[in-house]
C-alpha cells in the first residue's frame, strides 16, 4: 500500500505540536491561552484524522489495515503499525478524549500550563502508539513510555497525596510490566521476531505458553487492574487532576484489555484456556468486592474508581469466554466505559472546580441550582449502571450472554454485580443531587458553563447512540472478533 502513512501521522502529530509549543513563551495569561488553543487544535486535528481513518477503514476486512513497516532496530524488530476492527475504536476513543481533556483543563490548571499540555500531548502519542503497534517491542515502548507523562501529570498537578499516589502508580505498573518485557525477549529469541502478525500464526509449546501467559498477565493484570492488584487505581484517580483521571480511566486501563485480546489469547490460546477459570474467579471477585467497597466510599472519585475496577471485571470475563459475543461485548464495554467513566470524572471535576472538595457529604440538593448538571450526571450514572438504551447496557449484556453460554454459576454471580452497580451509582446520585439544599456554599453554585456543555454534548450523544443503535460499532468489531475466535479455536483443536 502506497497510501498516506496515516497511523504514523496520528502518532507524530502530537509530537509536532509539542515542538511548536516549546517555541511559545509562557509568561502571561495571553500566551498561556495561546498554548491551550494550540494544544486543543492539534489534538482536535488528530481527532479529525482518526475519523478519516475510521471512515476509510474497510469493515469487511478482518486483517490488519493501513499497515506500515520499516526497518527499525534489527532483523525481527521492525517499526510495524496497523489497525484492525478492535484497535481502531480505541484509537478514535483516545483522539476523542484528549481534546476533551485539554478543554476540561482550561480553568482547572493554574500553573505550569505549558508543561501540562506538553505532557498530555506526549501521552496521546504513547496511547495511540500502543493501539497501532504490531510489534511487541514497539508496543512495550509505547506501553511503558506512557508512564512518564502520567507520572508527571499526577505528581505535579495532583492533589495532596500526589507523591505517594504517583509513585505507587508508577512502581506498580513498572513492576508488572518488566515481566512482560522478559516474555517479549523470550519470544524474540525463540520465534526470531516480535512481529505480531507473524506471531499470531506461531505455535508456542504448552509449557512456554503457560510461562509467557503468566508474564503478560502480570503486566495486564496490574494495568487493567484486576483484584487484588487494583489498589493503585483509586489512589491515582483521587490524586490526579480531572483530566488525568479521565485519561487514566478512559484509555490507560483499556491498553491492558486490548493487550489481553491481542496478545494473551492471540498468542497463547492453550494457556488462556487453562487459566480462564482463574480469570473468571478473579473477575467475579473483583466485580462483587469492589462494588461493595464502592458502596462505602466517601470520596466521589474513589467511588468511580472502584466502579471502574468492577466494570473492567466484566471486560476480562467477556474476553476469556473465547466467544465472538464475549469479545465484542468486552470491546464495547471498554469503549462505553471509556466514554462513561471519563464523563463521570468530568462531572466530578465540574463540582470540584466550584467547591474544591470531592467529599460526597459536602454536596446535596444540587438539582435545584444546577439542573443541566443534574441531567448530564444522571445520564452517565444510568449508563454506568447499564441501563438499557445506554452504551453501558450493550457491553454488559453481551458479556453476560457469553458467560451464560459458558457457565451459569459464573453468570449468576456476575449479574449480582449489575445490581450492586445500580445501588452504589444511584445512591451516589441521590446523595449529591437530590435532597434539600441546606449547605450555604452550595447555593452559590453555577450551572454548566458553555465550555462544559461543549465537553459533555459529544459524550452524551455517543453514550445514547451506542446504546440505542450499536450496530455500526459491532459491524466494525465483528470481523476482527470472529477472526480472533476462529484463530484461537483453530489453534486449540
Amino acid at each position, binding site marked *: 500500500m502506497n497510501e498516506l502513512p496515516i497511523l504514523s501521522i496520528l502518532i507524530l502529530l502530537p509530537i509536532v505540536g509539542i515542538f511548536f509549543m516549546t517555541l511559545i513563551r509562557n509568561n502571561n495569561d495571553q500566551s498561556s491561552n495561546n498554548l491551550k488553543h494550540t494544544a486543543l487544535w492539534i489534538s482536535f486535528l488528530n481527532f479529525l484524522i482518526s475519523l478519516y481513518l475510521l471512515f476509510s477503514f474497510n469493515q469487511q476486512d478482518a486483517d490488519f489495515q493501513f499497515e506500515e513497516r520499516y526497518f527499525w532496530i534489527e532483523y525481527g524488530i521492525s517499526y510495524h503499525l496497523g489497525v484492525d476492527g478492535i484497535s481502531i475504536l480505541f484509537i478514535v476513543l483516545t483522539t476523542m478524549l484528549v481534546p476533551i481533556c485539554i478543554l476540561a483543563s482550561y480553568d482547572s490548571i493554574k500553573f505550569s500550563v505549558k508543561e501540562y499540555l506538553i505532557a498530555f500531548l506526549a501521552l496521546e502519542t504513547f496511547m495511540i502508539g500502543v493501539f497501532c503497534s504490531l510489534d511487541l517491542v514497539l508496543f512495550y*515502548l509505547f506501553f511503558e513510555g506512557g508512564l512518564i507523562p502520567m*507520572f*508527571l501529570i499526577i505528581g505535579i498537578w495532583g492533589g495532596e497525596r500526589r507523591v505517594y499516589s504517583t509513585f505507587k502508580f508508577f512502581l506498580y505498573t513498572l513492576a508488572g510490566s*518488566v515481566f512482560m518485557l522478559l516474555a517479549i525477549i523470550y519470544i524474540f*529469541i525463540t520465534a526470531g521476531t516480535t512481529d505480531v502478525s507473524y506471531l499470531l500464526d506461531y505455535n508456542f509449546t504448552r509449557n512456554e505458553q503457560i510461562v509467557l501467559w503468566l508474564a503478560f498477565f502480570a503486566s495486564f493484570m496490574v494495568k487493567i487492574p484486576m483484584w487484588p492488584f487494583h489498589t493503585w487505581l483509586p489512589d491515582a484517580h483521587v490524586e490526579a487532576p480531572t483530566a488525568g483521571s479521565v485519561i487514566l480511566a478512559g484509555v490507560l486501563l483499556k491498553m491492558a484489555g486490548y493487550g489481553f485480546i491481542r496478545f494473551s489469547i492471540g498468542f497463547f490460546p492453550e494457556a488462556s484456556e487453562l487459566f480462564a477459570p482463574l480469570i473468571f474467579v478473579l473477575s467475579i471477585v473483583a466485580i462483587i468486592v469492589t462494588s461493595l467497597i464502592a458502596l462505602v466510599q466517601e470520596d466521589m472519585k474513589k467511588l468511580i474508581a472502584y466502579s471502574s475496577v468492577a466494570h473492567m471485571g466484566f471486560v476480562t470475563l467477556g474476553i476469556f469466554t473465547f466467544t465472538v459475543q464475549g469479545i465484542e461485548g468486552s470491546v464495547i464495554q471498554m469503549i462505553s466505559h471509556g466514554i462513561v467513566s471519563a464523563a463521570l470524572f468530568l462531572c466530578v471535576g465540574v463540582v470540584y472546580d466550584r467547591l474544591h472538595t470531592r467529599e460526597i457529604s459536602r454536596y446535596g440538593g444540587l438539582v435545584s441550582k444546577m439542573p443541566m448538571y443534574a441531567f448530564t450526571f444522571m445520564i452517565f450514572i444510568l449508563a454506568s449502571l447499564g441501563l438499557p438504551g445506554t452504551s453501558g447496557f450493550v457491553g454488559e449484556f453481551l458479556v453476560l450472554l457469553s458467560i451464560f453460554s459458558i457457565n451459569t454459576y459464573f453468570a449468576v454471580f456476575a449479574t449480582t454485580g449489575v445490581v450492586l452497580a445500580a445501588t452504589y451509582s444511584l445512591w451516589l446520585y441521590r446523595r449529591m443531587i437530590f435532597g434539600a439544599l441546606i449547605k450555604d456554599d452550595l447555593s452559590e453554585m453555577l450551572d454548566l458553563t458553555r465550555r462544559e456543555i461543549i465537553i459533555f454534548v459529544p459524550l452524551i450523544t455517543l453514550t445514547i447512540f451506542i446504546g440505542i443503535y450499536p450496530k455500526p460499532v459491532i459491524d466494525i468489531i465483528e470481523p476482527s472478533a470472529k477472526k480472533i475466535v476462529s484463530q484461537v479455536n483453530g489453534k486449540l483443536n
Partner: protein
Amino acid sequence: MENILHIIPEIFIFCSALILLILGLFIKNIKLINNLAILSLLIAVALVINQPYQSIYLNSYVIDEFSSLFKIMIFIGSIVTLVMFVSSREDLHINLYEFPILILFSTLGMMVMVSANDLLAMFIGLELQSLSLYVLAALNRNSLLSSEAGIKYFILGALSSGLLLFGISYIYGFSGNTNFNLIAVNYNSESLGLLIGIVFVLAGLAFKVSAVPFHMWTPDVYQGAPTPITAFFALAPKIAAMGLLVRFLFNSFGELYLDWQQIIFFISIASMMLAAFAAIAQTNIKRLMAYSSIGHIGYALIGVACVSSEGLRSLLIYLMIYLVMNISVFTVILSLKRNDAYFENISDLSGMYKNHPFTTILVALMMFSLAGIPPLAGFFGKFYIFVAALESNMVFLAVIGIIASVISAFYYLRIVKIMYFDEPKEEFDGVNIRSLQVLFYPSSFLVILFFIYPAPIIQLSEYAIKSFY
C-alpha cells in the same frame, strides 16, 4: 622504526603530554594548555580510526575493532572531562596545569589497557592509569574531602594492584606464560593455581570497575573528588577496565568459561542489588551517581557473564549508552551553582523546574533513562542485556536484573520528584555556560531520540566484537 608506527596514537598522546608538561612550566595560560590537550585527543581519535587492525609485539598488544571502539569511548570521556575542567577550574580550586596532563597520561594508560593482550602490558596500563587517577582525586589540596578521597583511593587501589600482581604471579607460575592467548593452553583439571590466579586478577579488575564487593571506594571518591574528576571516574576508567576484563577473560579463558562465569555471575547480582538498595538513602547527588554506576556495572557484567557474542554486543551497547547518559548527568551536576558556590545535595534541587523548565525536563528524562524506562536510550541498553541473558539461558540473572531495575527506578524517580513536586528553593545558575551546554544538549538529545533509529549503534557493536566471535 616501522614497529613504532603501529602504536602511533599512544605515542602521540604520550608526546603531547610531555610537551604540554614542559610548556606548562613557561606558559601560565592553563586554558591554552587544556585546549591543546583537547586538540591532541581529537587528533588521537582520527589516528585511532585510521589504524590498521593487527596484533603486534609478539602478540602482546592487539589493535582491533574492539580496542578501537573502546579507545574512542575513552577519548570522548577524557575530552568531556577537559571541557568540564575549563568551566569549573577556578571555583573548584583545581586551577592547575597538571590537570589536563594527568588526564592525558591516564588516557594513555587506558589505551594500553584496552589493547593489552599480555599480563605485563595490562599491568603497565593499569598502573599508569591508576597513578594519574590517585593524584587527580586529591587535586583540590585545600579540601579535606578531596584529600581523603585521594588517600582512600590510593590505599585501596594499591591493595587491589597487589591482588592483581599476586594473581598474575600465580598465572605465570602455573602456565609459564604471560600472553593472554597462551596462558590457558596447558590448562587441565589439576591447574588449581591457575584458577587462584584468575580469581585474584578478577578481584583486582572488579576493584577497577567498582563491582561489589570491591566497590567501597566508589561513593567516597565520587563525593570527595572535584566534580570534573568524578565525571572522569564515571566515564573513562570503568569503561577501559571493562574492556580489559573482557579481553582477559575471553582471550585467555574463553573456552574455560565455566570456571569464571560464576564469579562474574555473583558480582553482577551483588552489584545490581546492593546499588539498588544503597542508593535509596543517599542525599548527595555524587554519592547517588556512585551507587548508580555500581548498579550499571552490574548490568554490564551480565553481558560478560553470558559468554556469548550477544553478551558482548549487549555489553558494548550498554557501555556506549551509559557513557552518553553520564555525560549529560554530570554536566548538570557541574552546573549546580548558587551564588558562586557549588552544591551537591539532592534536596537543593527541589522545585528546580520552576526556574529551569527545559533543563529539568531533560534531567528528568535522563533519570528515566538511567532507570531503563522506554522509549529512552537506557531502555535499549537493558533490553539487549536481557536478550543476551535469556539467549544464554540465564533466566535467574535476568529476573534479578529486572527486579533490581524496578527497585532502582525508585531512587531515580525520587530525584524527579524532588525536582518537580517539591517547593522551589532560590534560583541557581543552571546550565548556562557555553562549554557545558555543548556537552549537555547533544548528549541529552542523543539519549532521548535514540529510539528513532537505534540500528547504527547495534551494528557498530556487532562490528566491534568481530575479533572475539
